[in-house]
């Protein structure tokens, strides 16, 4: 159908640094791990056969803490990179889209097959807000997780954070509420993930750009745009 | 001369917040009586929309004195609604808990709540401990805590209190009132038991906690059964219960029984305790499962003090009236459909014998207690009702216990229908329970040899509607809980509490409840120090702030009543 020559992209757009890409996949892995271990912690569906020294629950819980701390660290780094990374300009530019009503209508229309997805930064406004919300969700999950954690491990970081975390616990209305909110954050991720995966694939197909590749290679390309430019 | 108003608020030594007002004539005889609960908490409203499995634990917080009663009632009302049948072991354990509760509760009520109405602490000072020690053998073959040395020690402690004029909880009371009838020696015996009972009640509470987790407010019942399976199956725990049971039973036999015999002797001619019973209808629930086929007490009711006829309860005839209670509502409602919408109208200013005060507006609404009625009539509930109904039913154990007691004290059957009788009935009830609790216990021991189940699984179908109730006997009388379940949640919840039966205000038809009826005709020694009123009200063992109402009659009815009771008693014996 198309001339093979025009499909070659000469000037791919740089989107994500390697650090950000690694962090993204790290988060993907640990959130999956956290969801699975978290479900087990909320409602332990396996029991050890035979002896008590297997410490099954403790092991699941341990992995949950390990994943949790990875998520926490990854989250902190990601927030830093959002502001100070070498790729942060593209992301910060999206703030302009959030403030622009036109960008909003453009993005929403594009999702319903009307027009192109045009934006100033690398994210559409809805996309940007969603990612910010997910980041907030990571923060809430991390903080509530830490509040729960300081009661499990009393030395090191657990001991260090004990007092401030108890303050947050009291502010939130007790550990049960903390635990409840922590549980709700997990559902936030679970709802986000399918939408996220779908829209990435969909926009890659619909707008013929490297929506998937960008998280592997860091570079985006715009097949359609190239074609249009060529035709023009 | 116009009647004078006496206000007593707070009524102390009860559970909850109770105000009683009486109007006395120029001879200090009570003409009218009103009572009011002065606290509303709205627990029935709070229960709406909750998980039915939480009903028991939440309802238990209605009361921390008859703790467990509402827990069990809440759990069993939900079981009744869902059609869950708990295993036999669970039923026996619940019965053992109930028996343990009675053994704790009646001791604490008589000695620590009611006792100071009968015992003049100050008078015990002038007693001769030696004489008192000998006197104790008159009331018990083997008295407890009445050795000369023990009594001397008690006396010295009391002296310490009185001399320094800093009486702590005994301050500013009614010591020296002429209606205190015990001799100094008798007072000393009772006082020694007051202190001993503090110790015994701890043991009784431990006995309860073995299968109940803690007391007050146990936590081992669930819809479908009980949770303390490890304790039930542990021989160590079983023998622990048995040991503590024997200690408490010993105290009931050797001290509590003896003190009531002593009170019957001393107060047998004291007018102010030989009335105090105005409503002649008595209602009782079933309780104290002994084994698969036998309960210690059966349910039923008797009317007009007639012991020759006993009727089965038709629960559809129970309703609650709120004409004079601080709630919205036009006509009496069945408990399943009961509403609890507050409509507070408060107090009015008035004169009392003690000066100006806030008084009840008896013509309007004046209490937080509703007025339960059975077939439009008021009923008394409690240990006395329980014994009378079972007496009329021909319950051999009850007939024997009552007979033995009357023989021992030389009192006529009619003496049961009094304040003194109500207090004695509480003792007789717990004596019967402590004598028979061992049967329930042995049934359990026998059964766990072959059957270790303690829990029945169940499902709550959110698409179905359920309704169920619990009706049974608890330390203060007949308790019923009524629940409707819809969408898997509590749709409506009502509790008809013993004290509600006894203390409910006048209803739309002018029918008067037991509290208010019991006070009319009472002569007060000193209206400013109304000990006699306290004694009658305490004899009911109030468990929630309750209500009394206007009664515009002279005291004549009480004497008529005595006659009719004696007749009734005579024909059924």
């Amino acid at each position, binding site marked *: 159908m198309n001339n093979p020559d025009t499909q070659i992209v000469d000037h791919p757009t740089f989107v994500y640094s390697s650090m950000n890409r690694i962090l993204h996949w790290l988060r993907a892995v640990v959130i999956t791990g956290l969801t699975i271990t978290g479900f087990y912690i909320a409602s332990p569906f396996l029991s050890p056969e035979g002896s008590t020294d297997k410490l099954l629950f403790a092991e699941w819980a341990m992995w949950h803490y390990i994943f949790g701390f990875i998520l926490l660290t990854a989250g902190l780094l990601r927030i830093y990179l959002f502001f100070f990374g070498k790729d942060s300009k593209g992301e910060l530019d999206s703030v302009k889209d959030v403030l622009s009503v036109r960008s909003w209508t453009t993005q929403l229309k594009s999702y319903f097959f009307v027009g192109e997805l045009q934006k100033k930064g690398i994210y559409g406004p809805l996309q940007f807000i969603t990612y910010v919300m997910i980041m907030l969700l990571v923060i809430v999950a991390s903080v509530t997780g830490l509040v729960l954690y300081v009661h499990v491990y009393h030395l090191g970081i657990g001991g260090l954070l004990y007092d401030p975390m108890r303050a947050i616990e009291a502010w939130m209305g007790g550990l049960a509420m903390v635990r409840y909110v922590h549980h709700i954050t997990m559902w936030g991720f679970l709802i986000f993930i399918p939408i996220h995966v779908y829209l990435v694939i969909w926009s890659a197909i619909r707008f013929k750009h490297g929506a998937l590749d960008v998280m592997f290679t860091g570079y985006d390309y715009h097949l359609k745009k190239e074609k249009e430019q060529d035709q023009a | 001369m116009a009647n004078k108003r006496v206000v007593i608020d707070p009524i102390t030594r009860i559970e909850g917040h109770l105000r009683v007002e009486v109007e006395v004539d120029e001879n200090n005889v009570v003409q009218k009586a009103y009572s009011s609960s002065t606290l509303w*908490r709205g627990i029935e409203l*709070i229960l709406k929309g909750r998980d039915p499995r939480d009903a028991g634990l939440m309802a238990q917080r209605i009361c921390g004195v008859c703790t467990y009663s509402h827990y069990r009632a809440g759990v069993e009302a939900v079981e009744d609604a869902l059609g869950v049948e708990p295993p036999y072991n669970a039923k026996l354990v619940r019965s053992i808990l109930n028996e343990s509760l009675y053994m704790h509760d009646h001791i604490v009520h008589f000695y620590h709540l009611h006792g100071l109405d009968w015992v003049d602490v100050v008078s015990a000072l002038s007693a001769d401990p030696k004489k008192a020690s000998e006197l104790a053998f008159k009331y018990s073959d083997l008295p407890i805590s009445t050795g000369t040395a023990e009594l001397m020690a008690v006396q010295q402690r009391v002296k310490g209190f009185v001399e320094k004029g800093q009486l702590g909880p005994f301050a500013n*009371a009614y010591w020296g009132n002429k209606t205190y009838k015990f001799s100094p020696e008798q007072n000393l015996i009772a006082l020694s038991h007051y202190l001993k009972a503090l110790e015994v009640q701890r043991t009784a509470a431990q006995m309860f906690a073995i299968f109940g987790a803690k007391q007050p407010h146990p936590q081992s019942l669930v819809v479908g059964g009980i949770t303390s399976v490890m304790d039930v199956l542990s021989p160590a725990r079983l023998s622990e219960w048995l040991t503590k049971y024997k200690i408490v039973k010993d105290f009931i036999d050797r001290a509590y029984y003896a003190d009531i015999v002593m009170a019957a002797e001393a107060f047998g001619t004291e007018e102010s305790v030989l009335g105090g019973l105005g409503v002649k209808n008595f209602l009782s629930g079933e309780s104290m499962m002994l084994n698969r086929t036998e309960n210690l007490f059966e349910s039923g009711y008797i009317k007009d003090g007639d012991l020759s006829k006993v009727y089965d309860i038709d629960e559809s005839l129970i309703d609650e009236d709120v004409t004079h209670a601080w709630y919205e509502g036009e006509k009496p409602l069945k408990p399943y459909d009961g509403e609890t919408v507050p409509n507070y109208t408060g107090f009015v200013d008035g004169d009392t014998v003690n000066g100006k005060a806030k008084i009840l507006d008896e013509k309007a609404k004046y209490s937080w207690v509703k007025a339960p009625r059975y077939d439009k009539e008021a009923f008394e509930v409690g240990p006395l009702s329980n014994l009378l109904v079972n007496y009329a039913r021909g319950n051999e154990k009850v007939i024997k216990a009552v007979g033995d007691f009357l023989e021992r004290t030389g009192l006529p059957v009619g003496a049961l229908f009094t304040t003194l009788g109500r207090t004695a009935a509480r003792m007789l009830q717990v004596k019967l329970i402590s004598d028979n609790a061992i049967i329930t216990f042995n049934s359990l021991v026998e059964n766990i040899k072959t059957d270790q189940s303690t829990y029945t699984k169940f499902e709550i179908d959110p698409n179905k509607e359920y309704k169920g109730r619990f009706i049974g006997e608890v330390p203060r009388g007949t308790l019923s809980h009524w629940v409707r379940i819809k969408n898997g949640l509590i749709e409506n919840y009502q509790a008809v509490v013993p004290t509600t039966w006894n203390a409910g205000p006048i209803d739309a038809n002018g029918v008067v409840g037991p509290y208010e009826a019991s006070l009319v005709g009472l002569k007060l020694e000193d209206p400013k120090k109304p000990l006699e009123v306290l004694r009658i009200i305490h004899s009911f063992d109030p468990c929630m702030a309750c209500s009394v109402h206007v009664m515009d009659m002279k005291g004549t009815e009480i004497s008529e009543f005595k006659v009719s009771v004696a007749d009734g008693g005579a024909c059924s014996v």
Partner: protein
Amino acid sequence: MNGFDALYSKAEERIRILSELPSTKNKTIEKLLEEKGVQRRDFMKWAASITAMLALPSQFTPLFADVAKLADRLPLIWLHMAECTGCSESLIRSDAPTVDSLIFEHISLEYHETLMAAAGWQAEEILDGAMHKYKGKYILLVEGGVPTAMDGQYLTLGPQAKTGLSVVTEAAKDAAAIFSIGTCSSFGGIQAAAPNPTGAKGVDKVVKQPVINVPGCPPSAKNIVGTLMHFLLFGTLPALDRYSRPKWAYGNRIHDLCERRGHFDAGEFVESFGDEGAKAGWCLYKQGCKGPYTFNNCSIERFNQHTHWPVGAGHGCMGCSEPDFWDTMGPLEQPLDSHLVMGLNSTVDKVGTTLVTATVIGIGAHAVASLFMNKKEG
């Protein structure tokens, strides 16, 4: 001076001040102990056990003995608000036979409606008198939540029908210390559960003075007595957590010191009440135990002279010493993931599953639409 010495000398100073106060009794506790036939050795044993309970070093034992002897100088006023008297009952169950009852008899219990002989006007006189006579010196203990709706008229007390709210704020003004005994006076309790028809609140929400909370439904006698002893010894508030609970009693979760904790870590759970796991004493987490979210010392002190406690009796903890536990921890016999979302008769997991399902359906619809659009455009 290190912290320990500082604490020790503070306690000594406190005892000196107390001993200079005029006694309200003629006899010292020591004398009364003798009369009661309690040996000094038993008394010291009790003092040692209280010292250990408060997590203080054993050097404090003699100080405790001293302070117990002086306890009779401290007037107590105990008020009942919207309550069930369960906390008073718990107090009566107090521990360590003979000695504990002595302590209670000889702390000067000025006003306590469940125990006092006087009623009505006479009772009110006592209350007014004690508040006047011991101005600034008495300890105020409150049982029950304070109804605040309708200007507090859901509870009235005394011949002048004062509201509970006015009585407690009045008594708080001149109290040396205020203890909220039980969850109701600490956090509002059962009557404050949704929809809180009477506007019930904890005492610390209605008075300006600092309040020590001793929650529990009811709190164990140990926690009531221990908190009092701490005040007697140091004359200051004990170390408190964010909810003003004494740390010595409410510093650990039930879960941290639970006898069934090994089974939790092992993943061995009671699947149904009365099952083999229940008979073997396995963990009650799946039966809704709220021990992991609840701070109290039940697993150590237990109730009724160490007789038993809920988890021991095979029923999970229901979280009764936590604020708003009726609303945040129900259904009490189900794990927290069964908690109903406010206003929806549904759990977080059910709502979450529904939303995820809706999302997936939405995605499917969008994908199908995309196919058609592509064809059209293509």
